[in-house]
C-alpha cells in the first residue's frame, strides 16, 4: 500500500481577489483509504477536491496521483482516470443505465465485450439486477437507485481515485443511512482511494478513514475519526465535532468488539428447578433462553421461573432486546435503555446468541 494521493502546499486564489480559498493544504492518502473533506460552508473543501481533477486550476503547490504531478497531465486524460460522483447524480437522461455506466469505458475505447461485462459486474456490486435495470432510463429509477448508478458510473473506468462531492447530500435521512452502509460495503469490495466532500460531521465520522477538517481554506486537523473525536486539536474542532462527541464515538465501535462472551444462558429444555439455580449463580434479573442449536428463544425472569410448568420453554417470554454483532454501540446503548432487561443480547447472522453487554461494557470501551 503506497501513497496514492498527495497534496503538497496546494493553494487556490481566485483571479482578481487575494482571498485564499484553499491555503497551503497538504496531506497524503494511502491506497484504498477514504478521506473526508469536511468543514463549514466556504471552507474550501469543494474547491480543494475539484483541484484534484483540475475542474479548478491550481494557483500554487502540487497534487500527485500515484506519484504523477496532475498539472503535467492532459486534463481530459486525467479526468478519465478519476471517478467523479456529484451531489445531484447528474446521470445523462438521454442514455440508458447501461449507456450511462459505459460512458468512461467508451471514452477509454474499451472493446464492447469488456464494457458489457463491466456494466453487469458494476450493477451487481451496487445491488441492482442487470437484466431489470440496464435498459431503463434514469427517470425510471428512484433517487436512491440513481445515486447508486452514479457511484457505479464513477467506478466504471476502474479509476485508482474517486472524487465524491456530497454524494448523499440530496437524499432523505433514512435512505442516506442505508446508502452510506451500502457504499461502505461496496468500498470493502473495491477498495478505491476516495476523496469525499461533505458538510455533515456525522457522515464524515461514519464514512472516513481519515477526516480532513478545513476552515477558511486552512487545514485544521487531519486525523482518523477516532483520533479527532478523542483528541480534538483545538476549540474549533471540539465545537465542530459537537458537544456529543463521546456519543458519536459510540458509532465507531461495533458491538462484537465490546461484547462479553459469557451470557447467562439456559436451554429451553432445562427444568425450572435447574433454571432457578442458574439464575442465582449469575445474579442477573433475567436468563437468556436458547434452543438446542443455540438460537435465541427469549428471556426468563425470576417470577417466570416460579410459575407453573415443567421446562423453561413453558415460561419463556419473547424479547426484542437483542442486536446483531455488526451494529454500533450507539444502537446498543439505545436498545439497552429501551428495554428493562439491563443488558443487551448479541446474536450472529443465524440468530445464535454470541454474547451480551451492558452499559458498563460501553463505558469501558470509551475509556480504553
Amino acid at each position, binding site marked *: 500500500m503506497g501513497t496514492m494521493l498527495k497534496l503538497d502546499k496546494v493553494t487556490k486564489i481566485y483571479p482578481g481577489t487575494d482571498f485564499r480559498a484553499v491555503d497551503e493544504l497538504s496531506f497524503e492518502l494511502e491506497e484504498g483509504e477514504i478521506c473526508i473533506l469536511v468543514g463549514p460552508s466556504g471552507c474550501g473543501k469543494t474547491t480543494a477536491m475539484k483541484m484534484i481533477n483540475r475542474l479548478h486550476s491550481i494557483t500554487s503547490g502540487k497534487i500527485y496521483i500515484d506519484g504523477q504531478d496532475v498539472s503535467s497531465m492532459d486534463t481530459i486524460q486525467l479526468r478519465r482516470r478519476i471517478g467523479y460522483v456529484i451531489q445531484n447524480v447528474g446521470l*445523462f437522461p438521454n442514455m440508458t443505465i447501461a449507456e450511462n455506466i459505459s460512458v468512461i469505458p467508451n471514452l477509454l475505447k474499451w472493446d464492447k465485450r469488456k464494457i458489457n461485462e463491466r456494466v453487469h459486474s458494476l450493477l451487481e456490486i451496487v445491488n441492482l439486477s442487470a437484466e431489470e435495470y440496464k435498459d431503463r432510463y434514469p427517470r425510471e429509477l428512484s433517487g436512491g437507485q440513481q445515486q447508486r448508478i452514479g457511484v457505479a458510473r464513477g467506478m466504471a473506468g476502474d479509476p485508482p481515485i474517486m472524487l465524491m462531492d456530497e454524494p448523499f447530500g440530496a437524499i432523505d435521512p433514512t435512505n442516506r443511512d442505508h446508502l452510506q452502509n451500502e457504499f461502505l460495503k461496496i468500498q470493502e469490495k473495491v477498495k478505491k482511494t476516495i476523496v469525499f466532500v461533505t458538510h455533515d460531521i456525522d457522515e464524515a465520522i461514519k464514512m472516513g478513514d481519515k477526516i480532513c477538517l478545513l476552515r477558511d481554506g486552512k487545514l485544521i486537523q487531519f486525523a482518523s475519526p477516532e483520533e479527532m473525536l478523542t483528541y480534538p486539536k483545538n476549540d474549533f474542532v471540539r465545537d465542530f465535532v459537537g458537544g456529543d462527541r463521546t456519543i458519536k464515538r459510540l458509532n465507531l465501535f461495533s458491538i462484537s468488539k465490546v461484547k462479553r462472551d459469557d451470557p447467562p444462558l439456559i436451554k429451553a429444555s432445562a427444568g425450572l428447578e435447574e433454571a432457578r439455580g442458574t439464575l442465582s449463580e449469575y445474579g442477573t434479573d433475567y436468563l437468556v433462553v436458547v434452543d438446542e442449536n443455540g438460537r435465541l428463544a427469549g428471556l426468563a425472569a425470576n417470577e417466570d421461573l416460579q410459575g407453573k410448568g415443567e421446562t423453561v420453554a413453558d415460561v419463556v417470554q419473547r424479547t426484542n432486546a437483542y442486536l446483531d454483532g455488526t451494529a454500533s454501540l450507539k444502537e446498543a446503548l439505545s436498545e439497552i435503555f429501551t428495554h428493562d432487561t439491563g443488558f443487551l443480547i448479541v446474536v450472529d447472522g443465524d440468530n445464535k446468541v454470541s454474547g451480551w453487554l451492558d452499559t458498563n461494557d460501553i463505558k469501558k470501551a470509551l475509556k480504553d
Partner: protein
Amino acid sequence: MTSKVFTGLVRKGLPAIITVAVIIFLYKTYGAWEYTVENLPEFFRLTFEHLLLVLITMCFSISIGVTLGTVMTREGWEKISPVIMAVVNVWQSIPSLGVIALAYGLLPFIGLSGIGMVPSLIAIFMFSVAPVVRNTYAGIESVSSDIKEAAIGMGMTKQQILFRIELPNALPIIMGGIRTSTALVVGTAPLAFLIGGGGLGFWIFTGIALVDMGIMTAGAVPVALIAMLFDFLLEIGEKMIVSRGVQADEAQLAAL
C-alpha cells in the same frame, strides 16, 4: 389498457374523421372536386412546387436555425446571442405578407431578382427560422448544470458534450421549435405565389380574385392537408430520433 387504446383512438382518430368529413363537405358543396379532376396535371405541378417550397425552406430553417441556436450557447458568443435572437425575432414579427413584400422590394438591391422561387424561399425562411433558433438555444440552456458538470468531470471534450449530452437532451425542445417553424412555413408558402414563387397559392388567390369558392377550396384544402402531413411526419420522426429517456411520457401526452 383497453381504455388507454380507446382514448388513443379517440385522440388520434376523431380529428382525422372530422377532417375528412369537412373536406368531403367542402369539395361537394363548392365543386372543388370537379375542378381538381379537370385540372389534374396542374394540381400535381402546384402541389409539387408547394412541397418543394416547404421542404427546401425547412432544410434551411433546421440547419441554419440549429446552428445559430447552438452557436449562441457556446462560450465567447454570449454577447452576440442577443443580437442574433433580436434579428430572427424581428424577421418573425413582420407579418408574413410583409416579409414577402420586403423580399420583393429589397432583393434587387443585393443583385437578386425579386420575383420567383428563390426570393420566396428567402422570405419564407426569414419568417420561419426564429422558433428553431429560439428553441435550440433554450433547449441547450435548459440542460442542467449538474449533467454538464458530470460530463466535464468525466473527461468529455467540448464536442463530445455538445453531441452526446447537450443536443440529445435538448432535442425534444428543438423538435418543438421545428414543428412550430414547419407550421409557419406551410402557412406562409401560399403567399409565395404573390411574387411568382408558384405553389398552391396560385389556386387560392385565383379563387379569391374570381370569387370562386371551388377554385379556392381546391387550393386551400391540399395546403391544410400538407400541413397535417408534415406535422404527422415530424411526430413520427421525433419518436425515432429522440431518446426514450427524454421523451414526454404517456401521461404528459395524454394531458396535451
